[in-house]
């Protein structure tokens, strides 16, 4: 199964090191392949350094592509994490 969804980066500092680490950690138990696309660039979401490379600031729109058996729960999980600003919400 392949899912595509757009999310907004809501936390004030954008996708910096800590959110990137949180995403990678979140994906560790999942089996699907996950890609982020931002400004014509698609990267492997399991790499902190690649996520950092996107340099996505607050309010950037990221396209998430998930493919695999656990695509649905993985996508739900990711959307929730973006929505909750990776625990940075005050």
């Amino acid at each position, binding site marked *: 199964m392949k899912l595509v969804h757009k999310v907004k980066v809501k936390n004030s500092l954008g996708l910096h090191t800590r959110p990137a680490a949180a995403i990678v950690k979140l994906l560790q138990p999942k089996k699907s392949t996950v890609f982020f696309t931002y400004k014509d660039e698609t990267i*492997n979401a399991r*790499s*902190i*350094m*690649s996520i*950092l490379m996107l*340099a996505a600031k607050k309010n950037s729109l990221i396209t998430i592509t998930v493919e695999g058996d656990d695509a649905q729960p993985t996508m739900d999980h990711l959307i929730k994490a973006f929505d909750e600003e990776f625990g940075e919400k005050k």
Partner: protein
Amino acid sequence: MSRAEEVILRGLPISKGIGIGCPIFFSNWEEDVPVVQIPEIEIDREIDRYRKALHSSREDLERLRKISLRDGSPEITQILGTHLEMMQDPMLTTAIEDRIRGSSRNTESVFFHLIEEYKIRFSTLTDIYFQERVRDIIDVSRRILNHLCPLQRLKMSEIPNNSVILTHELVPSETVEANASLVSAFVTAAGGLTSHAAIIARAKGIPYVANVDIKAFKRLDLHSLIVDGSQGLVIVNPSRKTLKKYQAIKRGHQESYKMLKSSMHLKGETVDGYEVRIFANLENPKEVDSVLKNGALGIGLFRSEYLFLSRKEFPSEEEQFQIYKKMARTLRGRPLVVRIFDIGGEKKVDLAPEHKDARYFAQIGHEINPALGCRAIRFLLRYPELLETQLRAIIRASAFGEIHILIPMVSDLSELRQVRAIVNKLCAEFKAANVKFANTIPIGCMIEVPSSAIMCDALAQEADFLSIGTNDLVQYVLAADRSNPHTVDLYFSTHPSILRLIRMVVASANCARKPVILCGECAADPTLIPLLLGLGIREFSVAARHIPLVKHTIRKWRILEACRLAEGALEHTAAQELKQYLAEETVR
């Protein structure tokens, strides 16, 4: 892998010739990441070396995190956790391994490349916070780099064959170690036409181009390089066609040099039979033999400071004595002019504070204007123990050949008098102790500071010979820094003022019946030799490899023509006009 594209970079031509070879990044201390090609069979070992470093780095972080969990702040614990995550990042594991395999380069340079990519990427962002994000990556990379077995720092004398050295700046002590049969060319970011490193590169015949953006190379996929030191071009990854063209030019150079060399044992004399004496400049005492093979009448300028610069400590009296004695013996009665230590200014080395000789430099400290600072004879008179040690060694060696003492950077008669007084005192001591030395040890002055050129009549009376050092004289007279790219255009070896000064010095020397020798780099320029002859110079000292060319040039001129050329030249009052005149009149 597809063939990389040919890229041409333009720089400042410093030392002529064509160099073709493989790039070697010669790191400066501020940026200690050597780039080394790894042979195919050792790639697995290199990757293993990387995995071990990664493993040790993880252990480090875990240990730190445990400590932090116990009594550190939660932020630090979290950062350490993130760093641990990063070390499992595919970008730092499989991607780096693939890069090592793909580029056949050592891990350090692959890392450096990666960090540079990140830096470029983030520096284009205006948001400072985003720029800061690269710091974590650098942090993690540093940790891993520290765990990679530190590669031995490359030595200039031990680099592989056919290397093109890429570095930020060349320092004289390193350049002097370079072996022309191993080093194909130099390419640097900084450095001027007449810096000491440039002089040595030319003397060794190593092509050199400066003012090239070295950092740009690190982003390119480098395979091979052509350095055209005559045009100031660096051609990265040349096509077959370009390579063939340059190989042909290089062969042409080698053949014409061979042809010149065949005439090197002929006398240096003009068509009408005036003898011109050609001596050699020398930095490395071991090269005396090869200097004689090039047809030199002796050593006109031994830059003794390289004894210090190359070993990074002052040699003892006994060490110096053995060196000078051996040189004098090899020369068999031909003159050896020892210029006493010209140290200070740009000629110094970074010594650790605990080094026994560090105090000499620490006392002087950082000079805002080293070219006008405490260097050469000023330095030696400040530390008489260094001066006396060297003079004692020279006087003792004088028993084995014809040795002259040359004082660098004389700016006042008193400096000559002080050196002579010390020499006389030491000779008296040696005589009393029954130590052998020569009956006469001539003492000469370098004329390289405007005050000494202006006062040359007085100096000529008291000195035993004069030696015009045009490299420094030009820079001081024109107030143009010889290694500053922005003042290079002002630096004319043939400025009308220089011509007048040379004429003055020659006249004073002739009047006092003292020999005068010219030992600047312009003595090896075929367009300037006839002019210098015309101004009355009859003794030249040049780098050994230029001797065939100098002789060849002299043998094409008549002294009368040269005098007429010089008279005509003295009529020109603007540097550019004079240059034009010389270019037109010296074509042969």
